[in-house]
């Protein structure tokens, strides 16, 4: 109790949240664009508030890759949700933690006194990621328009074979480290090698993630935090499509590695699922809570962010959480529930090992003692992105929202939500139960 009393002013209230079911990206585009998803979830959240949508001070949305017709997707969503023209909106981007960045930006805006009531969230429609043409061909086409006269055009024609159109997936490009050229999966392979993580351990983790998610689904916990989506064909999407009740070590063992095809261990089965989804959180200052008679379920403080070598990006949560715990004067034992985004089974296992490893904690983070081990029954207790899915921009918001709901459910006080971030970063946020007296 006393530990945080000095930080009393540093809290912002989490009043409510909502998300869409996470839909699998199955090769072709799902019926909902990113803005559609954000609007569907957001309007349902706003409907159940006591205040009018126009009373929001800002709308902040994290998204890694909005489609070309959704530039500043936060503003598109805000207008379509009926917030009215007077509510400003910004889109934020910090790769896989864009959703957490949106929440963090909202928290800091409120703490700085520049807003009282902010809708923040994340969205991604990965199934809508477009194909793009190579720059050489685009340049060639520009030349074709500029050049006049048949001779000039014929000359240009002769250069075409050198710059034929080669479409590539923007999604895959986005999942590749721009500095090293390693894919995200390859950084997971790197961590597996560094910490000696076996394929069987990864698959076992994935199976457990599915088992927990299926349990949570059956208990109705995931449904309660989501809306239903209805598409134009009258199909209703009422649940996350990711969790597989029939997942087993045998089935996962049969999958081929996808990133390092010959000798790798990281498969589609022990990686986060590529999916579409949106999640919103409603954040309010103490004053706004009073003014609108709101009933917050949690309170949050600004996130801690950390940087590390891009190939070690999977260990980002370790560094961010170390910073967070130190800032809040907490130890691992003080935290009742952890939500660490499961980008890859190898990555999350590496995080747990690094936190318990004296040498790593000392050498990489200058800690005298290791951070300590996270108990299995406190980490991702309803499964993670391997089962539920990882719409990159949305996941940060989802784990904060889900963590707040877990704390309510288990009647415990403190939780930490953290993600690894492509490019070599980590982000972590402390979530406290607002209704628990403990």
């Amino acid at each position, binding site marked *: 109790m006393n530990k945080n009393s000095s930080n009393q002013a540093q809290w912002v209230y989490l009043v409510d949240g909502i998300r869409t079911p996470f839909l699998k990206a199955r090769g072709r585009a799902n019926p909902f664009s990113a803005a559609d998803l954000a609007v569907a979830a957001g309007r*349902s959240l706003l409907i159940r508030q006591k205040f009018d949508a126009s009373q929001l001070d800002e709308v902040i949305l994290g998204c890694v890759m909005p489609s070309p017709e959704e530039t500043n997707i936060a503003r598109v969503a805000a207008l379509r949700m009926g917030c009215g023209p007077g509510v400003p909106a910004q889109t934020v981007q910090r790769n896989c933690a864009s959703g957490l960045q949106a929440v963090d930006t909202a928290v800091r805006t409120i703490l700085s006194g520049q807003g009282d009531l902010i809708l923040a969230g994340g969205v991604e429609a990965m199934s809508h990621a477009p194909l793009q043409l190579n720059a050489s061909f685009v340049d060639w086409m520009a030349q074709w328009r500029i050049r006049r006269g048949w001779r000039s055009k014929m000359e240009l024609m002769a250069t075409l074979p050198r710059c034929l159109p080669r479409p590539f997936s923007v999604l895959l490009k986005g999942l590749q480290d721009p500095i090293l050229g390693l894919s995200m999966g390859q950084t997971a392979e790197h961590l597996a090698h560094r910490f000696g993580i076996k394929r069987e351990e990864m698959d076992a983790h994935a199976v457990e993630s599915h088992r927990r998610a299926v349990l949570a689904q059956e208990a109705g916990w995931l449904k309660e935090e989501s809306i*239903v989506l*209805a598409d134009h064909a*009258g199909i*209703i999407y009422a649940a996350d499509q990711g969790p597989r009740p029939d997942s087993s070590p045998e089935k996962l063992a049969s999958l081929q590695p996808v990133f390092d095809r010959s000798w790798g261990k990281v498969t589609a089965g022990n990686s986060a699922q590529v999916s579409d989804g949106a999640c919103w959180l409603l954040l309010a200052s103490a004053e706004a809570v009073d003014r609108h008679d709101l009933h917050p379920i949690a309170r949050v403080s600004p996130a801690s962010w950390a940087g590390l070598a891009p190939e070690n990006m999977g260990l980002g949560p370790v560094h961010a959480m170390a910073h967070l715990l130190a800032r809040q004067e907490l130890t691992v034992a003080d935290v009742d529930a952890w939500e660490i985004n499961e980008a890859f089974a190898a990555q999350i296992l590496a995080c747990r090992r690094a936190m318990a490893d004296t040498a790593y904690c000392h050498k990489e983070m200058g800690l005298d003692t290791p951070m300590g081990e996270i108990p299995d029954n406190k980490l991702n207790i309803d499964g993670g992105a391997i089962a539920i899915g990882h719409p990159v921009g949305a996941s940060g918001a989802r784990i904060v929202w889900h963590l707040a709901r877990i704390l309510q459910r288990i009647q415990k006080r403190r939780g930490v939500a953290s993600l690894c971030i492509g490019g070599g970063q980590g982000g972590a946020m402390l979530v406290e139960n607002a209704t628990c007296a403990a």
Partner: protein
Amino acid sequence: MTIEVKEKKMNNRIDPPPIWQPCDSGDGILWLIMNDAKRSVNLLSIEALEALSTTLQELRIHPPKALVIRSGKPSGFIAGADVAAFANERHPIRLMAYIRLGHEVMDTLANLPFPTVAVIHGHALGGGLELALACRHRVVVDDPTTRLGLPEVQLGIHPGFGGSVRLPALIGHAAAMKLMLTGRTLSAREAVRLGLADLAVPPRHLETAILDLLSTAASRRTCSGFRSRLLVHWPLRPLAALAWHRATESKAPAHHYPAPHALIDLWHQHANNPQAMLEAEQKSVAALATTQTARHLTRLFFLRERMKGMGKGSLAGIHHLHVVGAGVMGGDIAAWVALKGIRVTLQDSHPTRLGPAFKRAAELFSRKAGGWRQAREAMDRLIPDLNGDGVAKADLVIEAISENLSAKQALLIELESRLKPEALLATNTSALSLQELALVLKRPERLFGLHFFNPVEKMGLIEVVSGPLTHEETTKRGCAFAVSLDRLPLLVQDSPGFLINRLLMPYLLEAVLMASEGFSVASVDAAARGFGMPMGPLLLADQVGLDIILSVCENLSVNLNCAAPTLLRERVNSGHLGKKSGQGFYHHPPGKPARPVQSGRQAPEDTVDRLILPMVNAAMTTLRQGVVTDADLLDAGMVFGAGFAPFRGGPLSYAKSLGKEEVTRRLREISIRSNGRLEVDSGWKTFDFATETIPVEKGHEQEYHKRTTYYFTTVGKNLIRLIPGTG
């Protein structure tokens, strides 16, 4: 009339602002702004025409470089001639004088020696468009609210200020006749495409575009199409006239709707001689204006306006609607309201039931919203709501769950506990008594009925039902809400079947009975169509669904004397439900016209009486019981809500045309042969055929009040809520 107006002006200290305000822009172009301060829209009344005539005479003496005519009303250009003056003018000479004045003004305008431009925003209809046609150019504002057309045939007349001559000259004979015969209106872009308007311009470029037009285009536009010119010569002219007569006859038979046929005849005789046609048009339209059809249709026109005005003075204030029950009715109501710009939450405990509702909504939006952006906006306004979160935010909640009294009462209690204090509560019931539903509520005064008809998208009328406990302000807001949905509200008192179902039922059941007596389905339907109904009763029954008819009938039979014919029950039991099951009284092969299932004897001479008079008799019953306010609204309700032959003006209007003696005689005749199905209503004795009024019996209302008073005094409010279903 002229003198009177002038005298008034002299007597008044402050002159009303002139209808036509000239405004010199300084560059020699004169802007003439029309703004009739006495009306909400501009009309070409006699007064307006006279004032314009004076102004134009002055302009002939001091000609400007160009003349631009536009409206000072934000709502639109000119909505037409003064229909009231037209319809009420029984004196042929005064009527002729009005028409002649219109012609003179249009001729003067058309023959001005300098360029003239009509700038059109909003509605330019009838006489309004005819004035624009007399200008050299027309510039329309590119906006969805811009509508141009000559819809006179819908009032039983045809264009009378030279439109039948000037429109063909401008856009070609075939296109012009099609437009005038159907009365269809055009959007800004369609008008340009047809050549009716020179330019469609966004408001921000209006003035620049007009100046540009005046500096470049000099000559008057005319339609130079070869085909069009050929059409006015022998032998094509009689052939075209014949073809139009035929096409029109199927929709509007000449003996019911003379106007379009008179227009074709006018064209047939004078198409090659504009001057003669202008003369003949005046005589033709004057003759039409005094026909029964024109009188009935103009009366309905004003009744429509009256119904649109029902909600006036009290704002609906419905920005968020919550609908409970995503069945066909609930889902379609939700979709229509979302299309009309209101946020809707659609609640159903079963997510799977929401699916079909959203599918139909998406189809509706893609057809009707007017573009994918607008369709997306409508879709964004339609929110699936499993938990009923929308109730607390809603300004109006409509329940559309299955017709079960205790289920509905339980739902209403639950809804009321979460409703905003100023929010209204409506039920879409067509079977249950509003009073019984209201008894479980703490504040029954805000419960009313909103009876939509299926299909919601097509039915232009909503019955707004007032129970004995409903507050007047509640139904007023309900009416305003219906108007905001582009629907006509018909205020009815809570009674079995309200108005429309109550009147349609005897008509439909009599038709079913005739079919079971061995008369051919086709001949029964043909008789009704011959009377002027848009569709025969048996085909209508198939469209509505025989199961629906049966259930409405059973509901009504509790209180009223209408037993379901055995044949109807048999059809429903054997699964032949009408169009939706592919067979009823007709086969309904997909994509093909319906074929009758059974043939039989030709329906006898008096079929029309057998079908129509029970409906007319029921109309008298409902009027006597005060279910509707007056005979006018009853007629309008039946025409707009049930498609009763419009040229006959409605069931009571029809009774009036037969005369008191004749109606009662024929009713008695039918009654004797009907085996007690039909009882001649007592109201015929007291009904005043001249004023169309009747002393309303208060019996029903008194009964309601007695019961309610009992509940509120002896049982107590709280107890009522504990024992739902006791009403």
